[in-house]
């Protein structure tokens, strides 16, 4: 009976028993819903956006305006909120209706038929005057957009009174040439758009969060599983058949396979959702546009790094979680005994995320050094890579250190495990653990 066969048998049992448990299935479904919600967020936001149409009433008291102020207002308001979709394909955000009677219009606003009523009058000096009647905030988005639009109408009116024909005005309002370039002269190519920059930061953040969740959730699971075998006393039965090392490794791999299954399902669902987004958008929004490319910066290399750091980070922590679990014999004691690992994971995660968000100086020497520490590197390196701060040597060195740490942790954990699994009802002190590690039994 080779050791490998036993590792496989233990891993298989762990996987088969847990993959059908309610908590695993439920957790996976919740996460799937979350992933789909995020992936379809653009469509959902647009669908919500579309349904929120505002009706604006316009009462024109000034009689000598150049154009139709209602049409001008409608054009200006809807242009301001245009998100890039062709205007013909989407319903306008604002519907502007001319009304003859101001008092009636104000009454309609009170009744909620209109979001606001705008009165356009002309003062004795010749200037146009605007009054907005609304229950909404005077500094809100709608009021702000209308204010901008009225300024444009006023300017246009002043120009008309100065004798500039409406046709000539178009040239005056044409946008000036304006360019954005990289500050680094050596750098060429288009600069990052807002969504692109946010997208990349979010990727680093999201991947780090996923690794953190995997370690905390599944690490805890490994520890709980060890304790379950101890508390049900099945440990001694399997210990006669397999070595502590085989049990430990099999358990970590079995739970790891569960995590991979879940994350694989999430990844597939996410990619499928992104690819299907155009079709779904077409059905939900009734348009054909809005094809959704994969998030900017989501390269194969980044995905591989995510997988690598995720798996290595999980292995390192899971092995330690297993060793910790072997030291207690009741489920109630699991949380206390795994605390050191949880603290390390949380610390690494927070530092990694703060650094990637710019709250900590990512270029600092101590940061570079910290990012190499095996218990922390899985949470820090992805952020460094996505922000482009990682130096060429950082990834290979940190991975090598992680692998070495895993080997060391396995050795340590197997020794703790071998002695710990037969230890019942004792409160493990640091000295006792050290004795176990040194003696081996």
């Amino acid at each position: 009976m080779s050791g490998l066969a036993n590792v496989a048998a233990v891993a298989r049992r762990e996987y088969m028993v847990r993959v059908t448990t309610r908590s695993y299935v439920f957790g996976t479904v919740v996460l799937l819903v979350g992933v789909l919600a995020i992936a379809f967020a653009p469509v959902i936001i647009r669908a919500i956006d579309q349904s929120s149409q505002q009706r604006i009433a316009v009462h024109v008291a000034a009689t000598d305006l150049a154009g139709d102020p209602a049409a001008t207002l409608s054009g200006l308001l809807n242009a301001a909120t245009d998100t890039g979709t062709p205007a013909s394909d989407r319903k306008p955000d604002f519907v502007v209706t001319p009304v003859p009677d101001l008092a009636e219009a104000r009454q309609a606003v009170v009744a909620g038929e209109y979001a606001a009523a705008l009165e356009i009058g002309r003062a004795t000096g010749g200037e146009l005057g605007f009054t907005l009647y609304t229950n909404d905030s005077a500094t809100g988005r709608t009021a702000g957009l209308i204010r901008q639009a009225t300024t444009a109408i006023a300017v246009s009116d002043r120009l008309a009174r100065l004798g500039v024909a409406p046709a000539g005005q178009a040239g005056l309002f044409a946008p000036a040439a304006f360019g954005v370039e990289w500050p680094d002269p050596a750098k060429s190519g288009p600069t990052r758009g807002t969504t692109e920059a946010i997208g990349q930061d979010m990727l680093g953040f999201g991947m780090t969060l996923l690794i953190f969740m995997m370690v905390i959730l599944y690490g805890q699971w490994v520890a709980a599983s060890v304790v379950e075998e101890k508390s049900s006393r099945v440990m001694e039965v399997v210990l006669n058949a397999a070595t502590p090392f085989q049990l430990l490794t099999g358990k970590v791999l079995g739970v790891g396979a569960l995590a991979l299954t879940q994350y694989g399902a999430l990844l597939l669902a996410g990619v499928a959702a992104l690819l299907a987004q155009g079709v779904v958008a077409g059905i939900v929004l009734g348009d054909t546009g809005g094809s959704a490319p994969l998030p900017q910066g989501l390269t194969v290399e980044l995905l591989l790094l995510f997988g690598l750091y995720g798996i290595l980070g999980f292995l390192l922590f899971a092995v330690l979680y297993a060793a910790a679990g072997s030291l207690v014999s009741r489920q109630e004691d699991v949380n206390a005994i795994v605390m050191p690992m949880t603290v390390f994971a949380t610390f690494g995660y927070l530092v990694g995320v703060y650094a990637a968000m710019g709250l900590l100086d990512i270029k600092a020497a101590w940061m570079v050094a910290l990012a190499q520490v095996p218990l922390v590197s899985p949470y820090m390196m992805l952020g460094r890579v996505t922000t482009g701060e990682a130096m060429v040597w950082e990834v290979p060195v940190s991975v090598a250190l992680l692998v070495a740490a895993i080997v060391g942790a396995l050795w340590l954990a197997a020794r703790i495990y071998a002695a710990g699994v037969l230890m019942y009802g004792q409160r493990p002190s640091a000295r006792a653990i050290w004795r176990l590690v040194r003696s081996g039994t």
Partner: protein
Amino acid sequence: MALVVDGLTKDFGSVRALDGVTFSVQRGGICGFLGANGAGKTTTMRIVLGFLRPDSGSVTWDDRETREWPRRTWGYMPEERGLYLRMPVIDQLVFFGTLYGLTRSRARALAAEWLARFRIADYADRKAESLSKGNQQKVQFIATVLHDPDVILMDEPFVGLDPINAALLREAFLELRDRGKTLLFSTHQLDQAEELCDSVAIIDHGRVVTAGPTREVKRSAGHQVVRVATSVPDELVWLRSLPHVTVTHPGRDYTEVRVDAGADPQSVLRAAVARGGDVLRFEVADPSLEQIFVDRVGALDVEERTLAAPEVRP
């Protein structure tokens, strides 16, 4: 070929758990390992199986350290029963079997055979937690012997079994022995041990107080037991008057007396005949294991008696 436990010593901190434990079990033998709770039985078994290392001493099977033998050589039923409670019975038996190197299909077939033999074939697909304690214990025993180990160590295998199931287990023990398997089991039920074991080892406070073939251990006590029934009235009175005789068990059907070492049991018969009545029953026997145990170790203390009570009831 024998399992030889030689001079095992083990300290846990300041507590000496084992102090030179020595005994042996011949191949194809059934050995009863007797002792109060905490006497060192479980620690000894764990050392035999290699879970623990002794501070000194050795355990060999066929002259090789037990640790060097492949794991499938050993079957172990721990004191505290251990099953995966939420796993179907057949699945966990297959799992245990594969750990010992059986293929999944072979393990499944063997498990089905054993389950049928123990009359729990219907429970194969049930989760272990839904089985009664007695049935769980039978599953536990199957997990111990599924891979056909040469040496089987069991901690209190009869605890919690009703008489019918205890009989099934006894039969299985004898069959395994007949197939050349070596069995070592601990028990509180000394009558059970007396019936099954060809050798015993009595352990107390980490020391073996006596060990060897059951008959020799019983003889080694020196004294003998006589069970006698006569038509003479006042039986107890005259029996008590005999030299070297102690009444140990005045009974309704017969009286049991202890005849000191060196005294002749036949003297009791002669005395009965001399009293002039009819001798209805006369039997000379070795003392029971329970008497040996009480002589050597002292009575189990009250607390342990209470704990052991439901176990002693067969």
